[in-house]
């Protein structure tokens, strides 16, 4: 019997520094994995942290990690060429095929960009790119992640990049992601699809705006983060109602998600 709790070693192939506290660790990995799924980064003696897959490539996955505590601080003590233990992938992930042929809006905030980066990437390489809208928000220009990707998305898709508050020298949009939704030039919001990922409050208000715009619950997809200790449906921390975020999510259709009361 294989033991699901035993992590396996993965080599750090590259480290991309976005901000002082947020790095992307490119980790060696071969196997099936989808955007929106996550791995447990497992540092013996420190603990484990669930981290979304922020990129998928030949022989690697990207994990974009914010340094916030015991485990993630220790992750930042690791360098290119070293190994880290990981286990996964866990969760359902996004079905990118759902969006390629449809009018689609992706709204992402902060580290919430990580789980949807793979989705946006697929859209930016897809056939019909005119009806793909991406709204990405960060706290300030200093908090921006994936700057290179964002430049490329700006060329290929209808991108709105915004920050909550500007710093000196910044000339782009200022304001919450929610304020750009009503102006989206959609042909038919009733059939358009939306993907929303970010902090709980941002998701809450974004969905209100989307519904005001005419979106229906079934066409809105969200991804949830909850406390997780296992990723395997055992520890109970991530459960809401009859759903386990680690097994049944973290990606949910909103008509289901709205029935989940923490």
């Amino acid at each position: 019997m294989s033991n699901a709790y035993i992590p396996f070693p993965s080599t750090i192939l590259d480290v991309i520094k976005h901000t002082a506290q947020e790095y992307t660790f490119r980790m060696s990995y071969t196997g099936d994995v989808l955007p929106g799924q996550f791995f447990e980064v497992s540092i013996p003696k420190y603990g484990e942290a669930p981290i979304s897959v922020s990129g998928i490539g030949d022989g690697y996955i990207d994990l974009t990690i914010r340094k916030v505590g015991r485990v993630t601080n220790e992750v930042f003590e690791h360098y290119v060429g070293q190994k880290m233990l990981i286990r996964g992938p866990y969760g359902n992930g996004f079905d990118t095929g759902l969006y390629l042929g449809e009018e689609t809006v992706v709204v992402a905030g902060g580290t919430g960009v990580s789980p949807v980066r793979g989705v946006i990437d697929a859209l930016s390489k897809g056939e019909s790119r005119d009806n793909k809208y991406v709204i990405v928000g960060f706290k300030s220009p200093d908090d921006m992640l994936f700057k290179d990707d964002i430049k490329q998305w700006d060329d290929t898709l209808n991108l709105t990049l915004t920050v909550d508050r500007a710093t000196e020298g910044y000339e782009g949009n200022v304001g919450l992601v929610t304020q750009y939704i009503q102006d989206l030039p959609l042909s038919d919001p009733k059939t358009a699809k939306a993907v929303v990922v970010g902090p709980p409050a941002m998701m809450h208000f974004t969905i209100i705006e989307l519904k005001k715009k005419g979106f229906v619950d079934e066409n809105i997809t969200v991804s949830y983060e909850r406390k997780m200790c296992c990723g395997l449906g055992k520890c109970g921390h991530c459960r809401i109602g009859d759903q386990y975020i680690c097994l049944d999510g973290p990606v949910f259709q909103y008509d289901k998600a709205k029935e989940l009361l923490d």
Partner: protein
Amino acid sequence: MGFVIPRAAFNQIIETLARRYRLYAPVRKKGAGRFLDTDVIMYDEVTTADEIVFDAKSDYAFKEALTPLSEVLFYFTEATTQEASFDNRPLLIFARSCDMHALKRLDQIFLENGPEDVFYQRRRELVNFVLMGCANSFDNCFCVSMGTNIAPDDYLFSVDLTAEGVACNVQDEAVAALFKAYGEETADVVPAHVTENKVKVNLPEQVPFSVRTDPLWDEYTVRCINCGRCNFVCPTCSCWSMQDIIYTDNGNVGERRRVGASCMVDGFTDVAGGGSYRKKNGERMRYKVLHKIYDHRQRFGINMCVGCGRCDDVCPEYISYSNIINKVYDASKEGE
């Protein structure tokens, strides 16, 4: 096979079995109760029948045999990870009907929800049961309402202390051979079970969403002190947290454990950066109660709660969980 044997003979059988199995049974711990000079009845390893408490409900369930309150999963040294060893001698657990039913719930979480849990499974394989019959219902029990008053069939033998002697329904061949050394097989022995409890609950078939936000939960924000005792005594509560420890005398060595967790206690939902869910105790009560009587059933087809009433027995604030179930039933009818 039915046997009715003298207590002395029964005691000898138990001593023989203690050489084949680790016997895990409810015992009385003097003075360890919640109040001064009260006892607590909890599970422990025994080697004689006299240690076993047959005439009272245990305050705690047997679940620690399968899900220890604190269990080492791995030992870490600088370069290696070593899976923790464990006691792999077969176990014989003395349990009542409700608790035997609880096993199925634990199995659903650890074996059917996602991949199999190896640490659970390796203990689970060792488990055998002795059914302790219930001639009378204890305080706060509502097993009849929960449909758990008749035990599942998978026990080696049952025990009822009767005026005629110890009555046992022996289902295991090897154990039957032991019994035959002490007495003749009698007519069938049916393990005692209760058919009525003083406490009864009505279970709602469907719980409409409106019940989750119903004001009925507010009362518990005030009354419940989120001590978590109701979770720790519950035979079906199984949540845990992962914990890595570095040994202080050697910083390069440590272990990964899992420790019992309670959804009523602060910290259960804490995420990095100070976020948490269900800050109010009333919300935690709603989360726990609906899991026990609805959410688990929606997922696995059976209620999680087995009606043992221990959460009612233990609550320092005298909160009646069975009463809450009835309130949920009423609110569910209204919400239909």
